[in-house]
Each structure stands twice: as C-alpha cells, then as structure tokens.
C-alpha cells in the first residue's frame, strides 16, 4: 500500500467510525418498522469500516502478487505515471490558492472585479505570462464571461457593493 493509499485507508476507517457513532447517538436508528434518520447512515458507516478493513487486508494478503513500486515514489502504487515535475506541483498550489481567493472575493467585491483579479492572478502567477498578454487575456475573458452570464443567460451575479 502506497503512502497515498495508506492515508486514504485511514481516512476511510476514521470516517466510518465517526459516521457510525454519529448515526447511532445523534441521529438515532429508530425501529425496523419505522427506521430513523440514522438508520441508513449507520449502515453506511458500518460498510465504510468493513471496506476499510478489507482494503487493508487485501493490501497485506495480495502484496506478494503486486509489482514492486520504487521506494522513492511519493504516491507509490496508487499513482498514475511518473511523479509530476516540481513546476507542476507549484502550479497546482498556486491554482488552488487563486481559486480559494476567488471564492472569498466573489461576493465581497462583486463578480466582475473578482473575475478580473482571478484571471490576472492566474495568468501572472500560475501561467507566468507577460504583463501585456496577461492583461489582454484577462480583459477579454472577464468581459466575455460577464456578457455571457449577465446578459445572455441572465444569471444573477453579485455586484460590487461600492458601485451598486
């Protein structure tokens, strides 16, 4: 079992235990003729625990039959292909942070301004594009998205509190 799979397995078991406990004590199981709100979640929790244990046993019992993965592989047997380059991981983190920032700013500064900042941040930080190219792409994309959603699809989008 690779490091990634190991963590996933432990998360499965922990989630299973929590769901079972919460369903039994907080949601209540009810009686069989009239199952309570916790009945199916309880069964799901038990299933998660059983599957988590089975997964662990499977990895132990079938270990000799699996191809050996290189020890330095960060994600190991559960990973697709070679490890991504460092630039790829940095890009991923920057993309994640940019998206979270977009979610945070979306209602606070309005759709148009937050979209402008998101696109600019993406082009400059994630893609490392030049200033001029970033500004052109940002302006075109933000304007296109605004027109599409606001005027063509008539979606209610948050406006900037200062301008509204």
């Amino acid at each position: 079992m690779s490091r990634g799979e190991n963590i996933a397995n432990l998360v499965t078991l922990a989630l299973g235990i929590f769901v079972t406990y919460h369903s039994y004590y907080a949601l209540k199981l009810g009686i069989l003729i009239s199952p309570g709100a916790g009945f199916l979640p309880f069964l799901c929790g038990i299933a998660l625990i059983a599957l988590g244990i089975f997964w662990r046993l499977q990895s132990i019992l079938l270990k000799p039959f699996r191809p050996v993965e290189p020890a330095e592989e960060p994600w190991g047997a559960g990973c697709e292909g070679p490890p991504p380059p460092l630039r790829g991981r940095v890009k991923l983190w920057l993309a994640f942070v940019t998206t979270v920032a977009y979610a945070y700013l979306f209602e606070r500064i309005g759709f148009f301004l937050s979209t402008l900042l998101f696109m600019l941040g993406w082009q400059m930080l994630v893609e490392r594009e030049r200033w001029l190219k970033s500004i052109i792409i940002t302006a075109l994309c933000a304007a296109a998205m605004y027109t599409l959603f606001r005027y063509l699809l008539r979606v209610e989008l948050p406006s900037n509190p200062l301008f509204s």
Partner: protein
Amino acid sequence: MNIFDGIISGFFIALTPMNLLFAFLGALIGTAVGVLPGLGPAATIALLLPITYSIPSPVPAVILMAGIYYGAMYGGSTTSILLNLPGEAASVVTCIDGYKMAQRGRAGPALGIAAIGSFIAGTVAVVGLTLFAPPIAEFALSFGPPEKFSLALLGLLMAVTLSGQSITKGLIIMVLGLLFGMVGIDPISGKSRFDFGVTELQSGFDFVTLAVGVFGLGEIFYNLEQQDSAEIVTTKVGQVFPKMADWIKSRMAILRGTLIGFFIGIIPGGGAVISSLVSYAVEKKVSKHPEEFGQGAIEGVAGPESANNAASSASFIPLLTLGIPGNAAIAMIFACLLIKGVKPGPFLIVEHPDVFWGVIASMYVGNIMLIVLNLPLVGIWVQLLRVPYSILAPVVILFTAIGSYSIANQAFDLYALIAFGVLGYLLRKLKIEAGPLPLAFILGPMIEGSLRQSLLMSGGSFSIFVTRPISLTLVVLFALFVIGQMTFGVRRARRRPEFIKAL
C-alpha cells in the same frame, strides 16, 4: 401510444426549430469536448447543468445534454488518432491502432472510419432504444418499493464493479456518494443530518456543485499538475473518406462493435469505456491477422469507435425506462431531468411522452448532424487543439464557480465546489474511479426512501426483498454478481504478474 405513433410524434417535437438548434448545439459542444483532452462529457454536462435552469422546457434541455454525451463519443477519436491522447476515456483503445495509422500517413481514413462507424452504430443503437425502451418501461410499471430498492442497489453495484479497477475502492466511493446525498434534512423524520451547525448544509449539497467539483475542477487541478507544455498537432489529415479496401476490412468490425456496444451499454456501469475495450479484444481475437493489431489495423479503430457510440445511445435505456443512470454522464442527464421537474423512470413514457419520444427522435437527427460535423469539418476540430490550456483552465473554473453559485446565490457553494474539486483531484491521483460518487449521490434518496417504505410494508422484516419474485430475482442477480466479481477479482490479482510479463 404504440412505438410507431410515438416515434412519429417524437420527430414532430425534435424537428421544431428550437429543438433542432439545441440538438445542433449539443452535437457541436459534444464534439468539441470530445476533441479537447481532459474535459470529458460528464464534466461538460455538469458544467452546463446550471444553464438548463434558463431553458424553459425539459425537452430542449435534455436534447442538449444528450447531444453533448453522444457527440463526445464522436469527437473523442480525433485526439486519439492525431496525438495518441484520448479525448475521453472511451477512446483510449483507439489510440493503439489509430495513432499508428496516423504515423503511417493514414490519419484521414482512420478519422473517417471512426466517424462513419460511430454514425452507423449510433443510429442502429437508437433504433434498438426505440424498440426496447417502451416494453421495458411497461414491465417496470409493476415495480414496488422492494423492487426499486433491489434494482437501484444492483445497478449501483454493477456500475461500481464494471467501472473501476478495484471493487473495494469503488464501493467506498459509492458509500461516500450515499453519505453526501444524506447531508441535510431527512425528508421523513425532518431531522437535520451531518450539518454540524452550518445553516447552508441543512438544504444538502447540490448535485451540480458535487458533479462540477469532482469532474470539472478536480480534472483541471489534475491536468495542471501533469501537463507542462501543450502538444502541437503536426499530423496531416488528408482524405477522410476510406477506400473500398478499408470498407471491406471494417464492415464486420463496425457490425460487431455495434452489437457489443449496444448490449454492454444497457448494463448499468457497462457504458462506452468497457464496450470499446471488449470490441478491441474481440476484433483481435476474430482477425485472421492479429499481428496487425497495434501496427495500424483499421478494424482496431472501427470496432471500438462503433462500440462506444452504440453504448452511449443504449445507456439511455435504463435511464428512460427504469430511472437508473448507468454512468456518470447519464447521472448528469438524470439530474437535468430532475431540475426540469421530470422524474426519469417507467412513468416517463406515460407522464412525459414529449420528453421520452422527443429525446429519442432527436438522437436520430443528432447522429446525422454529427457525421456532417465530423467528416468534412475535421480540420476545424483539429484547430481547436491549439487553444492553450492557460486560457481553457481558468475559463472552465469560472464556469464551474458561476454555475455552482447561480443555483442558490450563496458563496458557501463555492467553498463546497473547491472541496469537491480537491476530492476529485485526490481520487484521480489515487487512480480511483469517481463515477460511482454522483451515481450513488443521485440514487441515494431513492434507495433510502424505498428501503424505508419496504420495511414499513413488511412490518420491519427484510424478508420482503426475497418473497416477491422480481425483487428475489434482482437479489439473486446481486448475490451472483458479488460472488462472481470477488472470485474474478482474486484470480485477476493473482494473475497480474503473468499479465504484466506478457505485455
């Protein structure tokens, strides 16, 4: 209404200017997402689900979504053949011989036979859908809560076991999907579940947020990490119409692919991916020159491409007749129907014949549109591959964010979207198929409702599931399937070293 009257009325609906426009848009968008690697039909339908709120009637909305689904099957072969990069999962096997053909200067015939095979298979499968769907729907009318519960569970299990590599991981994802579906107020007891005091969670997660997060955002995150430079198409396409010799070689492969795809497509979880793999294996087996496979055999393109199109059309049968979505993309169409106030299942043909027959008829029209879009315009689709990922990725993220936000106009959904995106990314990293997650999420309320109703009917006894003939049959099938898969799974694991060696 008999089948003939039904399909005629369906054509009257499908051929209205509005529905023709939506069928065309579906075919167009579907081909585009099929061509673009990293953006599958499930993700695209999920991205466009919020737009269906602004479409006034359910018929054009479902026609649009269906068009995207089977259109993606057509477009998926383009990058497989030209770049050795599957546009979507069902075209993985097309890379083997399609790319070899392109390397030998035969990209045109490969693309041509893929499009023609897709057209024939898609049309034949829609004929099958027309003939088989009404009797199945009529039979399913006799289903009560125990049958619905057994059927939904069997469908989910089949989807889990057939879609991924590991049954255990697939089942974990299925249970996780069921749990996500339970978040919010329990419709029977009125008790709030797993809300942890967060008001927004009391109304539960929205399917669109879950689907676009796992399939859209997760896919973008994964691709960003993997891909550092965009591929550039250098292959010349040339003449796309296959020569007579290619036709003779491919005709039986197309026929076999159609039949394989149709029957595998009906099974929940079967779908386009498995049918294309089975078709390739069958073609190699029956060929007089199996050594040509992997070296640019046209049958290796014709068979799988026909199979995945037939399967995509056939997978509408369980959706429209039983209300069981067989794969993630069909689950999105299921959600689209629910958004438009239409409940898929045996009553669909009676309560909404316009949706039932209109969608089926639109698939005939859509297939014709797709052959026109794919054969002469293949050069334009190739140009689409030049759109840089640096623009495509943030635009897709904006679509997912606005789509999720627009459902309830609350910023909380954006955070939920990112959380589901991270989940989708992690599942991709761990090579776990995310398909069962939306299936279980969408079938969860039906499973829970029918389980509780069944127990109420039986006075709290689980024997109700084995004392009614249809339910018993489904339970027996369920048990046989579990035993079969477990035996097969252990054997497969034990044989893996020899298999790897043989490759």
